[in-house]
C-alpha cells in the first residue's frame, strides 16, 4: 500500500472554501448584533484635547459612542501587553483607545456602535476630535537623534531596547587583521502583510453567566484568550471562549493581540449585545502590524583565502508607535541568531536597537527577522565575491559548514542540528544550467541591450519554534510546545484536536495524513478540529513554520500512544503477549500469523464497550500529548533568480526562478510546493514591488492596494522546484517547516541578480524594492550609462 504520508492528496478543505461555504468571522451573524466602527487618528502624532461624540450619538441608528475615558471609568484594564521581554526593555502602556496622545495614523481614539455598518461609518465621520498636532518621526535610526520628537515618557530617545548577541571583542579583533573588509548599508523595506481576509471579531458577552465568546481572525486562539484575560479585559480565563472559524490568511498579522478585538469585546460587555467589528482594507493596512523596516550597517571580514573571519551588524529596528505582541522578538532572536547563514563564521557580533516612531507597530510578518538576516548575509557574500574576483558559487562553497560538522554551534546562539548544503546548491546549479547561463551573460554583455543577471541565495532558517525552556530564557512570555489529541471513536474513525490553528496551511489534510498513515486508515476517516479554546486542550498556534514540526509531532506522539493502547487490548483479545503483537496497515496480529487479526475498528469498539478489557486498562481509545521540541528545525536550500534589466528604463523582467529546498520529510508534496510558491512570490514582491512608504508627516502613502503592490500572477514566472531531504533528527516525523522558506530566501536572490546584471555600471548595492526608477537613476548616476 502506498503511504499516505508523502502523497499529494488534494486539500480536503478546498471544496468548502472554493464553493463559498466556508464561514469566516464576518460571515457570522448573531441576533441583536451591533456593528462597531473605530474612529482613528488622522495625525501621526497629536495630543487629544477633547472628543465630542454628541453629533455621532444623536445620529439615528447609533447605539453608543465610547472613548478611552469610558474604558477607564469601567475599570477594565483596556490595554494590550507585549509578549516578549528583553533586558532593560522600555514598555510604554498601550491603551486600546488613546485618550491623551495619538501616536500613529490609525491609532484608535473612539468607537461607534450602530445598528448597521453603514450607519456606524456615518457616525465615525461625525465624531469630533480636537487634535493638537505634534512633531513626527518615522525613520528608525533618525528617531534616536537629538532633537527628535519623543513618543513615550518611558523611553528616552525613543529607544525601546538596545540588544546585542555574539562576541563583540572577538569580532572587533577579527576586522583589523583581515585581508578583506566589506561594508554595506541596507534599508530593509517595510511591508504590509496583506492577508486576504481583513481582521475581524464578533464578541458576545452573556451577562447572566459572565461568559464571553469571541469569534476572531486568529492564528492562535489560546494566546488571544490568555492575553484577553490576563491583560486586556480582566475576565477569568475559563469564562472566555475564543473561536477562530475559517481564517483567510495571516502572514503573521493574526498572531498579535490588537486593540480592535479588545474594543469589540469590551463593547459587548457594556451593551450586553453581540458586537461585530471588521476591518476595511484601508484599516487593515493602517493597523495590521507591519513587517521589516530595518536600517542596517553590515560588515564582513575575510582572509586571503576568502574564508569569512568576522561579521558585524548594527541594526535600527522600527518598532512603530508601541511594542506589538512579539515585536521585540523579531529583530533580535529571530534575526541576530541567523547571521551565520550556512557558513562557518568564527566571530559574529550583532547589535539591534529597537526604536519607537510615529508609525504602525511592527511585528512578525512571514519570515520575521530571518529574511532580514538572510538578506544581509547573502548580500555580503555577493559583495565579497565581487571584491575578491570569485564566482558567487565559489565563495559560498568555501565557507559552507561542512556536512560532518553537525551539530554545528554558531557564534549566535543557535546550534544547527543537521544540514548538507552542497547537494542543494549543486542541484540548483544543474537545474539552471549555471555554466551556460554565465557564458550567455558574457556573450550578451558584449552586445548591449537587455542585461542578464543571475543571483544566488544559499539560505538557512530556524523555525518550528521551539524548546519552551530556551525561548523562556530568552524572554518569551509564552511556551512553544503544542498539544495534540487523537480520539478514536467506537467505529474506528478518528477526530484530531490540535493547538495549531490553521489559516490556509492545509492542516485538515496534512494532519489527517499523519494520523491515517500511522493508523493504516483512509484519511477521510480522520477529522481535524482546531481553533476553539473550548474544544482543544491548549495551543500556542500557527506561526514560525511550526505547525508540522511541533503540532504535527504532538499528533504523531498521540497516535502512537493510541496504537500502544490498542496493542494492549489486542494482545488480550488474541491471547498473546504484547511484545508478540504487531500493528500493520490497520491490523493487530501475532507476529507471523496475520490471518487471525484484530482491526483498529474491532479494537476501537471493544475499547468503548469495555466488556472485555485487560485488567487495569481504562475504557476508551484516545490520547493527548503536549510536545515540546528539543530544538528549532533548520530548513535550508539554494534559490537562483535569473532576470533581465532594461538599461533604458530600469525595468526588471524575471526569466526563471529555481528553488531547491530541504524541508526534511514531506507530508504532502503538493501542499509543500504551494507554500514554497507563495513564499517565493512574497519574497520576490519584497525585492521588486512592495513597500509601505510614510511621508514626513507620518501619512501612509501606500495605504491602499492602488499604491501598495502585491504580486500578481502575470508579474511572476513559473517556479522550478526541487528538494533534497535531510530529515530533522529530533522530531518523530523528520519534518522541518516550509511556510517561510520562500520569503526568507528569495529577496536576496533577486537583488543579487539585479546587482549582477548591473555589474558593468559599478553598482554595488540597491535597496529594496528595486523599482525601475531606482535602477534607472543608479545607472545614470554611475556615469557609465
Amino acid at each position: 500500500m502506498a503511504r499516505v504520508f508523502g502523497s499529494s492528496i488534494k486539500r480536503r478543505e478546498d471544496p468548502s472554501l472554493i464553493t463559498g461555504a466556508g464561514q469566516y468571522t464576518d460571515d457570522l451573524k448573531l441576533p441583536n448584533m451591533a456593528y462597531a466602527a473605530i474612529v482613528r487618528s488622522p495625525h501621526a502624532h497629536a495630543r487629544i484635547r477633547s472628543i465630542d461624540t454628541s453629533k455621532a450619538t444623536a445620529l439615528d441608528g447609533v447605539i453608543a459612542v465610547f472613548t478611552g475615558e469610558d474604558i477607564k471609568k469601567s475599570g477594565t484594564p483596556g490595554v494590550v501587553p507585549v509578549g516578549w521581554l528583553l533586558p532593560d526593555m522600555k514598555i510604554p502602556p498601550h491603551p486600546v483607545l488613546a485618550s491623551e496622545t495619538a501616536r500613529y495614523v490609525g491609532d484608535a481614539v473612539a468607537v461607534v456602535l450602530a445598528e448597521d455598518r453603514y450607519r456606524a461609518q456615518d457616525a465615525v465621520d461625525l465624531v469630533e476630535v480636537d487634535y493638537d498636532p505634534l512633531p513626527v518621526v518615522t525613520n528608525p535610526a533618525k528617531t534616536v537623534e537629538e532633537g527628535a520628537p519623543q513618543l513615550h515618557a518611558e523611553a528616552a530617545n525613543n529607544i525601546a531596547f538596545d540588544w546585542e548577541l555574539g562576541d563583540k571583542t572577538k569580532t572587533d579583533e577579527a576586522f583589523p587583521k583581515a585581508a578583506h573588509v566589506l561594508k554595506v548599508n541596507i534599508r530593509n523595506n517595510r511591508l504590509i502583510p496583506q492577508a486576504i481576509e481583513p481582521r475581524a471579531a464578533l464578541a458576545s458577552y452573556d451577562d447572566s453567566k459572565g461568559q464571553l465568546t469571541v469569534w476572531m481572525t486568529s492564528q492562535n486562539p489560546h494566546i488571544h484568550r490568555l492575553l484577553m484575560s490576563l491583560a486586556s479585559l480582566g475576565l477569568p480565563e475559563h469564562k472566555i471562549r475564543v473561536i477562530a472559524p475559517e481564517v483567510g490568511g495571516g502572514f503573521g498579522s493574526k498572531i498579535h493581540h490588537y486593540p480592535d478585538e479588545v474594543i469589540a469585546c469590551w463593547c459587548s460587555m457594556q451593551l450586553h449585545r453581540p458586537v461585530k467589528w471588521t476591518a476595511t482594507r484601508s484599516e487593515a493596512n493602517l493597523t495590521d502590524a507591519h513587517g521589516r523596516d530595518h536600517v542596517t550597517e553590515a560588515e564582513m571580514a575575510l582572509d586571503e583565502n576568502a574564508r569569512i573571519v568576522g561579521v558585524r551588524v548594527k541594526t535600527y529596528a522600527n518598532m512603530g508607535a508601541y511594542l506589538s505582541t512579539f515585536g521585540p522578538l523579531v529583530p533580535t532572536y529571530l534575526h541576530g541568531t541567523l547571521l551565520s547563514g550556512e557558513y562557518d563564521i568564527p566571530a559574529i557580533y550583532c547589535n539591534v536597537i529597537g526604536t519607537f516612531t510615529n508609525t504602525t507597530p511592527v511585528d512578525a510578518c512571514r519570515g520575521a527577522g530571518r529574511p532580514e538576516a538572510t538578506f544581509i548575509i547573502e548580500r555580503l557574500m555577493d559583495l565579497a565575491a565581487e571584491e575578491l574576483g570569485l564566482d558567487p558559487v565559489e565563495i559560498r562553497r568555501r565557507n559552507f559548514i561542512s556536512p560532518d560538522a553537525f551539530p554545528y554551534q554558531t557564534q549566535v546562539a543557535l546550534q544547527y542540528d543537521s544540514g548538507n548544503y552542497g547537494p542543494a546548491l549543486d542541484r540548483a546549479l544543474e537545474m539552471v544550467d549555471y555554466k551556460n547561463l554565465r557564458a550567455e551573460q558574457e556573450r550578451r554583455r558584449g552586445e548591449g541591450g537587455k542585461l542578464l543577471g543571475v543571483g544566488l541565495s544559499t539560505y538557512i532558517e530556524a523555525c518550528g519554534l521551539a524548546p519552551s525552556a530556551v525561548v523562556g530564557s530568552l524572554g518569551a512570555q509564552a511556551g512553544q510546545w503544542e498539544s495534540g489529541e487523537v480520539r478514536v471513536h467506537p467505529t474506528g474513525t478518528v477526530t484530531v484536536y490540535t493547538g495549531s490553528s490553521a489559516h490556509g496551511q492545509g492542516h485538515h489534510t496534512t494532519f489527517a495524513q499523519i494520523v491515517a498513515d500511522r493508523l493504516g486508515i483512509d484519511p477521510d476517516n480522520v477529522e481535524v478540529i482546531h481553533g476553539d479554546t473550548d474544544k482543544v486542550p491548549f495551543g500556542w498556534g500557527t506561526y514560525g513554520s511550526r505547525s508540522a514540526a511541533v503540532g504535527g509531532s504532538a499528533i504523531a506522539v498521540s497516535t502512537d500512544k493510541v496504537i500502544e493502547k490498542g496493542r494492549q487490548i489486542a494482545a488480550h483479545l488474541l491471547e498473546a503477549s504484547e511484545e508478540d503483537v504487531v500493528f500493520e496497515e490497520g491490523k493487530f496480529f501475532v507476529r507471523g500469523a496475520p490471518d487471525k487479526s484484530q482491526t483498529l475498528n474491532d479494537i476501537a469498539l471493544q475499547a468503548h464497550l469495555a466488556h472485555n478489557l485487560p485488567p487495569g486498562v481504562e475504557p476508551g481509545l484516545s490520547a493527548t500529548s503536549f510536545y515540546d521540541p528539543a530544538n528549532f528545525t533548520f530548513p535550508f536550500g539554494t534559490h537562483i533568480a535569473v532576470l533581465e534589466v532594461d538599461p533604458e528604463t530600469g525595468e526588471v523582467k524575471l526569466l526563471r526562478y529555481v528553488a531547491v529546498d530541504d524541508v526534511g520529510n514531506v507530508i504532502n508534496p503538493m501542499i509543500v510546493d504551494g507554500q514554497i510558491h507563495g513564499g517565493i512570490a512574497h519574497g520576490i514582491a519584497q525585492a521588486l514591488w512592495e513597500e509601505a512608504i510614510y511621508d514626513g508627516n507620518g501619512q501612509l502613502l501606500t495605504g491602499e492596494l492602488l499604491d501598495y503592490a502585491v504580486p500578481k500572477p502575470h508579474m511572476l514566472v513559473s517556479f522550478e522546484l526541487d528538494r533534497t531531504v535531510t530529515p530533522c533528527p529530533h522530531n518523530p516525523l523528520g519534518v522541518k517547516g516550509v511556510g517561510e522558506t520562500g520569503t526568507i530566501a528569495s529577496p536576496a536572490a533577486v537583488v543579487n541578480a539585479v546587482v549582477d546584471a548591473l555589474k558593468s555600471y559599478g553598482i554595488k548595492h540597491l535597496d529594496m524594492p528595486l523599482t525601475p526608477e531606482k535602477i534607472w537613476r543608479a545607472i545614470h548616476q554611475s556615469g557609465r550609462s
Partner: protein
Amino acid sequence: MYPAKFEYYRANTLQETIHLLQQHSGAKLLAGGHSLIPIMKLRLAQPPVLIDIGRISELSGVMKTDGRLRIGSLTTHAMLAASEAVKKHCPILAEAAAQIADPAVRNKGTIGGNLAHADPGSDLPAVTLALDGVIHITGPEGDRQVNASDFFLDLLTTDLKPEEVLTAVELPALEERTGSCYLKFEHPASGYAVCGAAAVVALGGDGSCERAGLCFNGVTATPYRASAVTEALAGRNLEDATIDQAVTEHLSIDDPMGDTYASGPYRVELAKVYSKRALKKARDRARS
C-alpha cells in the same frame, strides 16, 4: 469601504437617463462602476444619486460604417479586446483594452466610463486621441460631437456637462499600410499606465511616413499628443535612426506628473523610450 448614503435609479433608455440627470443635481452615472464605486467606498466621492445605465442595450456594441467604427459607450474592455471588427479595423484599441487591469475589471469596465472618468493613468484616452476619435454626446439639447483633442480638459475633467451622457466613440477604421501599437509601462499595484504610448503610422506608396500619431497616457494630467515628433516624421523614411532622432529632438514634456512610484522626469524618460519602441512596432506592422 462603506459608501455614504445614496439613491439609486435604473434608467432604461437614453432619454430617461437625461431626464433623471435633469431631476437630480449631483447625480453620477453608473456603468461598469470600476472607477466610481472604489472612490465611493473610500468616501472620496459621495454622489447623492446614482443612475444605472448598465442595461441600456442601445449604448453597447461595435458598428462599422463607411470607414468608421462606432463604439457604444457601454462596450466593455473585454468586448473591445475580443471584437473581430476592432481587431481588424482598429487593432490598437483591442491591444490597449486587453492591457487594462485584470479580467474582472475588463469584463465590467466600459469605454465610455473610461473616457468620461478621464483618469490620467487610463489606457483608452491616448489611444482615442492618437486615432483622432470623435466623442458622441447626448444632452437635453440633443446630440453633439466633440473631437478627442477637445474632450480631455484636465485631470479627471472632460467637456461633458452634468446633464449629458457620453453615448459613443467614433474612430477611423485604419487603412492598408497603417500600423499601430500601444505599449504600456504599468504600475505594479494599480495596473494603471505610468506611461502608455499609443503610436499610429500610415505609410505612403513609397514607404515613407504619410501620417503619424503619438500620444501618451500617464505622463501628464490629460493625454499628451506629441505633435512635434510626428510632424518631424512626416514624409520621412522611417528608419530606426530617424525615429530615434525625431523623438530625442522633438519630444519635450514640460509638466509631467510625478508620485512616490515614478517621478515626473522619469515618466518623461519612459515616454521617450516607449515612443521609440511603439513607433517602430507600428511601422513594422504598417510594412507587413
